[in-house]
Structure formats: C-alpha cells, structure tokens
C-alpha cells in the first residue's frame, strides 16, 4: 500500500463531465494513477519494452481516450492496470495507484500491482471492469446471456436472491439497449453490436468506478459504433463511472472523450483535453496523427501525414523514439529522452507534452508554458 508522496486527494465534486468542461476547476479527484509503469515482453536482449515509464492519471468520472498506432503499447497498458498480463509479459517497474472511495470519502490509495488474489477479484469487478475487442471470444458460447450476466452477481453478491439477480440482468440488458427477450439467447444468436452491448452490460453489473475498453467498437460499422458510444456516454453521465477508451482511431476519440492521451513506442507523449489536442496539439507525433485523417466536414485541407514507419520496440532509436520521423528533431533528440512540460491550457492544467521543443533552453517554445505565464 503506497500512499507516501501522493497528491492530496481532493474530495471536491467531480468536474462537470461534458467535454468543453474538462476543465480542472477544483482539481478533480484522481481515480487511478499510473506512475512510471513499465511492462516488458520477455527478458534480456530480446525484451520488448511495450510500456515504458508511463505516467497517466485517470480521474473520477471522466472519459479518457488513449490513442496510438498499432504496437504502441495501448493494450499492454490496459492489461497491466487490470492485472490481466500473461507471461511473457511482466511489469518491470512503477505502480498503479487506485483511490477507492468509501461513503463519499477517498481513503488510502492501493497499489493495484500489489493486490492479493482475493483483493484482485474484488478490484476487477467491483472497481474496474474490462471490455475487450473480441466480444465473441469473451462470451461463453454455451451459456445463455442471462446466466452470463448473473454470474458476476452470484459471485460478488452472494446474498442477492435469484429473482433479484434475474431482475438485475433484465435491467442491465435494458440499460444497454438490448431487448430483454434476448436474455435466453446464446452469443451466436446475437449480432456483433448486440454482443458488444452485452459485454458492456456485464461490465456494468457491479457498478464499477472505471471501465477499461480496448477497441470495443473497432469491429463494428459506424452506425452501430455510434449507437454504442452514445449509450456508453449516457450511462457514464447517469452512473458517473470513468472510462479509459483505447483505440487507434484518434478522430473517434476526439469526438467522444473529455481528454486524450497519445502513446508512441510505449510512452505517453502528450495528454490534453480533446478540444486542446484538436486545436493545439504540441507533440510532433500528435500533430502528425491529426494530419493523417481526412476530416468529414469543414474545408478540405492538405494532409501531410507522418513519414516513415512505427519503430521496432526491440531496437528503439536512442533519445526520443520519434526522432527518425520527426521534422523538428534536434541534436539532443537523438541523445536523451525528452522531459515532460506542462503547457497552459485555458481552464485546465492538464496539457502535458514530452518533447525537447518545449523544454526550457532548447528551442523557442511554440506554445506558452505553464510556468511562464
């Protein structure tokens, strides 16, 4: 149990979760704080540093997006914070602090990475739930939807009566917009969109504080995807859970999340509100990503994209791993990993970028830094 040196957890009300108000007024409570987390696949020379010294805070009640190219470490991070890593993956450093709240008060943070098996069972369902991409594989093909929905309740709420569990299952299905006459259906009888909704219903069963969703809608078409995302957003406002939404589709994240973190080669390189990132992305990689997808509306602009290819995580370039693809690379970029800089974001103190361009004394900072004014 780590609590030394933690920022004083505020018990102030959660900031209005609407996207424009991702503001930090009143410092929203952290819910999960990832500190210096590193995860490798394998050991020694051949080790893949899939997650590398990541710092990231998920706040209570927020919709946080995590974007990055394939192989940037998003899923590995999701597995690490839910303790679902399987060998050869292993945590090589850092901590994942979870701030539980009892009767409205935040109590001592717990380090998720130190939880015992029994504690972990509770953590995983009651506090943190997961929705992964392949809902078909995640659902048990030979068990009907109602049993799958009530399984978690049976395990975690042993006092609950059977009739109440069934009623709860109906309520959950209704909540995610699947007709209750599907309760006795088997997964294969449902469409991909319905299965994904059932997965979300299961995640909601024990009213968790955080739902981690890894590419939950990637396999669905845009209309179904929109239906599900709107449902999740309605539920978040109603039940005030937070979610971490992982996808490679940055345009989708900017569309739905309050704040977005950008990952590159195992590192979080920038975080800021959706609005801020869309209008003033600071990291050259984030800027490149924004220049990579054609906008559906608004004026047609020339898209510059990102030159080159994602790096091999076993043989990362020294210094900033983005330097071979970066138009702004300086000498120092090839030598030393850049420090993180806090940039001024109106109404928020969250815009953080990890790039030498913004480190004092290295280059004219293109954006105002927090300590400058």
């Amino acid at each position, binding site marked *: 149990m780590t609590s030394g040196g933690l920022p004083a957890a505020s018990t102030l009300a959660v900031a209005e979760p609407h996207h424009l108000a991702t503001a930090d007024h009143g410092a929203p409570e952290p819910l999960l704080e990832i500190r210096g987390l590193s995860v490798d696949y394998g050991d020694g020379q051949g080790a893949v540093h899939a997650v590398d010294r990541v710092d990231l805070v998920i706040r209570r009640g927020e919709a946080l997006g995590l974007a990055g190219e394939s192989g940037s470490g998003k899923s590995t991070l999701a597995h690490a914070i839910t303790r679902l890593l399987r060998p050869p993956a292993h945590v090589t450093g850092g901590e994942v602090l979870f701030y539980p709240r009892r009767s409205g008060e935040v109590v001592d943070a717990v380090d998720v990475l130190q939880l015992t098996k029994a504690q972990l069972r509770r953590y995983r369902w009651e506090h943190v739930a997961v929705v992964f991409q392949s809902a078909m594989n995640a659902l048990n093909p030979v068990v009907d939807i109602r049993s799958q929905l009530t399984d978690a309740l049976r395990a975690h709420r042993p006092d609950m009566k059977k009739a109440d569990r069934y009623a709860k299952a109906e309520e959950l299905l209704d909540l995610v917009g699947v007709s209750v006459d599907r309760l006795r259906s088997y997964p294969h009888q449902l469409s991909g969109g319905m299965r994904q909704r059932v997965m979300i219903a299961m995640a909601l069963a024990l009213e968790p504080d955080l739902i981690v969703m890894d590419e939950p809608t990637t396999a669905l078409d845009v209309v179904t995807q929109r239906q599900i995302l709107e449902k999740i957003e309605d539920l978040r406002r109603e039940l005030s859970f937070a979610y971490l939404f992982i996808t490679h589709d940055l345009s989708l994240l900017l569309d739905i999340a309050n704040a977005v973190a950008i990952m590159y080669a195992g590192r979080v390189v920038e975080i800021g509100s959706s609005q801020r990132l869309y209008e003033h992305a600071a990291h050259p990689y984030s800027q490149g990503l924004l220049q990579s997808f054609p906008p559906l509306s608004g004026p047609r602009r020339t898209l510059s994209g990102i030159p080159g290819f*994602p790096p091999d995580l076993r043989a990362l370039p020294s210094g900033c791993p983005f330097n071979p693809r970066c138009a702004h690379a300086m000498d120092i970029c090839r030598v030393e990993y850049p420090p993180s800089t806090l940039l001024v974001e109106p109404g928020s103190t969250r815009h953080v970028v990890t790039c030498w361009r913004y480190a004092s004394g290295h280059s004219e900072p293109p954006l105002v830094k927090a300590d400058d004014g």
Partner: protein
Amino acid sequence: MADPTAPIRLDPTGTSVSQREWQRTDPILHVESLRKYYPVQDQSIRSVVSRRRVVRAVDDVSFDLYAGASLALVGESGSGKSTVGRAVARLERPTSGEIVFKGTRAGSWRRSVLRRYRSDVQLIFQDPYASLNPVHTVAYHLERPLRIHHLVSSRKEARAQVLSLLEQVHLTPADQVIDKLPHELSGGQRQRVAIARTLAVQPSVLIADEPVSMLDVSVRLSVLNLLSDLVRKKELALLYVTHDIASARYFTERMLVMYAGEIVESGPAEAVTQQPAHPYTQLLVAAAPDPEQSLRSGRRTVRATGENPSLINPPSGCRFHPRCPHAMDVCRRERPPKFAVDETRWSACWLLSGSEAKAGASPNAAVRSQSASSVTPPSALATAQERLEEPTSWSVAHD
C-alpha cells in the same frame, strides 16, 4: 448536362477534375442492374417443403467507372459493397446484370476474354497480411503475374520490371525490398507490394476493397495518396470500397451510397458528404467520427435506431423504411426510383418526389416530409430522372 460554370474541384493531389470532363468521356466500365443472390439453407426444420431462399446481397446496382477518376462505394457492413467488387472483378459470376467493359458486353465472353478481363480489372484486398504468401519473396509475388501474362521474356527483364514496379509504389530503395519476405515488411509496405502486383498486369480498372482499413492511421494516408497518384498518372479507373466516408470524400470524385444491396444515393463525393440527400446517407454522415463538427459546433447525438436489415426478406418498398424517421405510406409500398437532387446527383427516396429537391439539407437537418400523395415528379425533374436512368453506355455495347 452538367453546368458548364460548375466550379472546378481540386482533388487532394492537386489535379483539377471538373464535372464536365468525366461526363464527356465514355465510361471504361459500365455496370447495369447487377444482381448477386446467394442461395441459403432454410434453417427451419418445420418447413416440409424445402423453399429456395436467397440472400439478396446485391440487388439492381448500376454505375460507371471512368479512366483517371475514382468512384467510392460506401455503406455499412453487410450492405453488399464487397460483393459488388467481387462480381465486377468477375471473381464471382453475377446472378444477373450487365457488365460492359470498353464497349464489350460480358454475356458473350469466352474464357480467353474473361482471362483478359480479369487482368484488366484488378482487385486489391483489405488484408495485406493474408494476400501475400509468407514463404515467397517480394520478387516472386511480382514476377508471377508478369510471367503468367507473358509480359516479360527473360529473368533479367522480369527483375527490371519488378524494380520499376516497386519504384512506382514508392518502395525504395527497390533493390533492398525486392528480396524480402512478407514478414519483413510492415502492413503499409505489404499493401504497396499488393498494389504493385496489381499494376504488374497493366490494368485499366482497380477495385480497392477497404485497402487501408487494416493499416495504421499514420500509413493510411500515404497508401491512399499512392492510389490516387496512380489513378491520375496511369489513367486508371478506381472503385474505392470503404465504410470510411471521410476518406472517400478526400480520395474520390464521385460516391455511391449502398444500403441493403441497393444504391440509395449517387453524386459528387463532396456534395454527397456535405449535403447528403438520402436519409440513410444522412445517418451515415452523422454517425461517422467528425471532431471538426463536434469540437467546433458542439457534440451531436445521432440516436440512430434499428438494426441492419435482413437481406433474405428485405423490407418492402424502401429498404430503409424501418429505420427512417421520415417513412411514409408510399415508402412501405413501393420501391423509390432514382430522383434527381440536382444535375449531378440522384437519391432513391420518396421525399424527393415532390417539388424542389432538397439539395441544401445539412447532414443533421431533417429532409422535409412530403405528403405521400405527391409522388409524381414534376416534368423538369422527370426529364432529369429519365436522363439519369438511361443506360449511358448501352449505345457503345456491341457483341
């Protein structure tokens, strides 16, 4: 006739493509009333008489492809886009319909003609991982079609050709790429090899089925740029099959919107995405991620309802009617014909049967409901509609 004063639009590569230009020339490929039905097993054990049932994957689809121009085919998953692609590439035999390629009708094709057609009309697949054989080098993949089609006479010539193909798809230095195995290439590089392979046989039509959806966001753009460069430089006709309507806006001139096996709207890509006329297109545009819209003018809620339609028992009349907020009686009874939205666009929706076309409808604005009684198009529109429905290349089709 297209408006001669119509502004010249710029495609992302900077070429100017005016509406007039592509309407003046004859299409390279004309597809008329294409249908593809797949037989299905009747699931119900109780039916004593085994009924023949079919999935109407593609039902009466017509379009033209022009040299040096791209056409997008967009729609939700299961709408039949890939089936159109496969049927047009003649990987599958259409159930009915006409394909007229450079003036020759498909019905009369001998095997040799079909073989020639299959090299003229090339398909690029979604999955660059599955489309290359893992045990063979890049050189092997590109030399094979050259040899099969007798396009080279010596190994030396083959190698030179392969190097040139790799350069055309910007896989440079080509002499370093040529001997690599697929697993040594990234997804984007593999897709370039797949594109180079289709170019080997000097096709005039490319059908690209979700060519970038399996690639990383950061490399999608370069592959799409490559395709659109090739369209321009090699005067290829491109059918770009995708569910990504935003990329279709950027990389194609014209767009077809498909729903439940049918084309529901057709027109210039910019107009279709910016002022969609058909309620389904409006839904598609509204549902697509669009930070420009949501971060500048506030987030929108789409509240889409309904499920993908059955293609075995498609809804009567307009297939979109169970999900359409504007559905009227006539929509349930009769299949809407193509109504002109303006001179370059049509939409198969009864809402347009009334007086003026709703060309100015914004993606989210509801197209005004018309009373079900006024289904006869006014004469001016009727002429436009007849013109649109007239098979433009019938005249050039000869056996």
